């Protein structure tokens, strides 16, 4: 199923007479759908956090704390991670929602699982960064999943319903009349 098919499904749900051929066919429906598509998709991924969108990504350390802070090595926000964290990592571009950090295990299975805290914050260049205490963790996150072919059916349905709700406000007054509408109504 292509994104356009999902948009057309949503248009049909509200009884809209027009369909789109592509996001770039120039129709008002296509323009609106193009505006709403990625935002709606990402919002639903964030909200539902589906298993099939989870991904493990090794993190890269961009700041680390010194062994100790003192007069000679004071804490400097631009150089060191926020207190009291030991490391700051770049959030991978494909990551939509960070879910958990895990250590790189020496042996598997892990018989004594341990919690690992982390925090998300906005970095100095207005991008998201992560704070944690492991030198080389792996991030489990909800990744940007753009291809509708790998979405589960319930997510596709949710996407259709959500888009339909949004389209309703814009195109709801352009519904096609029911079959034999006027005569039937008149009768």
């Amino acid at each position, binding site marked *: 199923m292509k994104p356009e098919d999902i948009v057309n499904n949503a248009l049909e749900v509200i009884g809209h007479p027009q369909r789109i051929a592509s996001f770039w066919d120039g129709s008002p429906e296509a323009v609106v759908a193009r505006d709403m598509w990625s935002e709606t998709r990402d919002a639903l991924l964030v909200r539902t*956090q589906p*298993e099939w969108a*989870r991904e493990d990504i090794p993190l890269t350390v961009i700041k680390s704390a010194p062994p100790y802070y003192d007069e000679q090595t004071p804490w400097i926000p631009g150089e060191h991670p926020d207190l009291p964290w030991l490391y700051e990592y770049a959030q991978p571009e494909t990551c939509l929602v*960070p*879910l*958990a950090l*895990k250590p790189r295990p020496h042996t598997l*299975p*892990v*018989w*004594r*699982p*341990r*919690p690992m805290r982390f925090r998300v914050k906005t970095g100095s260049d207005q991008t998201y960064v992560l704070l944690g205490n492991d030198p080389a963790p792996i991030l*489990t*996150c909800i990744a940007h999943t753009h291809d509708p072919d790998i979405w589960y059916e319930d997510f596709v349905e949710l996407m259709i319903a959500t888009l339909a709700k949004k389209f309703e406000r814009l195109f709801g007054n352009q519904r096609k009349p029911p079959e034999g509408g006027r005569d039937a109504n008149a009768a």
Partner: protein
Amino acid sequence: MPTQPEDIVNEALDQIGVEEIGDLYEGSRTSNVARRAYDPMLRAMHAAAPWNFARRQRQIDMRGDASGQHHNNRNVPLHWSYMYEWPNDCVHARWVLGLDAYALDASGVPLHAAPAWARPAPFIVTDAPIVNDIASDWDRTEGHNPESTRVIATNELGAMLVYTGLVMYPDAWDAFFRQAFVAALAARLAMAVIVDKVQARAIRSEQLAIARDALVEARVRDGNEGWTLVDHTPDWIRVRSSHSWWGGWHGSGWRSFPYVEDAGGVY
């Protein structure tokens, strides 16, 4: 494939009617809570009863000798003779086996041990200022931290400790332990993962009752499992016949002083 911690967590989730997890690091609310609860609960349940499946016995490592004869460290808590390191896998010290050894051979084996006299010897569990390398795995080792180490002080040379060891592998647990642990874990998870808190409280109480019953049954069953003879004189009777010139020199009276403190009880 052996049973893993995730399988145990899922058993607990089944009990409280919550959707299962894939792994403990998947990042869901349930997995995050379970990851925080699993290890502390596992150790707590090990310590809750004298489980036969987790009984271990070994000669413990000396870390101090008040006389300085067998170890350089003489900084042993008063009035004890020897100090031993808490075993890495020990969750609960049950008792110290008194062997009445008078010396150790070159390999550290107690000499003139008389196992037939095996009897619980007084001991205490305490903290000693034995530091651990901060870069070591002290955080994964029972009783160790950068500043100090948990030790067992006793008057027995070449002491043998009977203790409850941490058994991490679910396939090695006995059925009652598994039942108790799953129920206790379910109780712990209920409030965090069940949305309706009234229902969660009710489920938590139910699961705690199941865990309690399993513990009671396990105590009875473990007590009946095997033949046990606790053939020793209680401290309060032993003290009457020693420690004084008129009371005689029965048993190991002098070396068993003081009698009062016993962290582990006798199982």
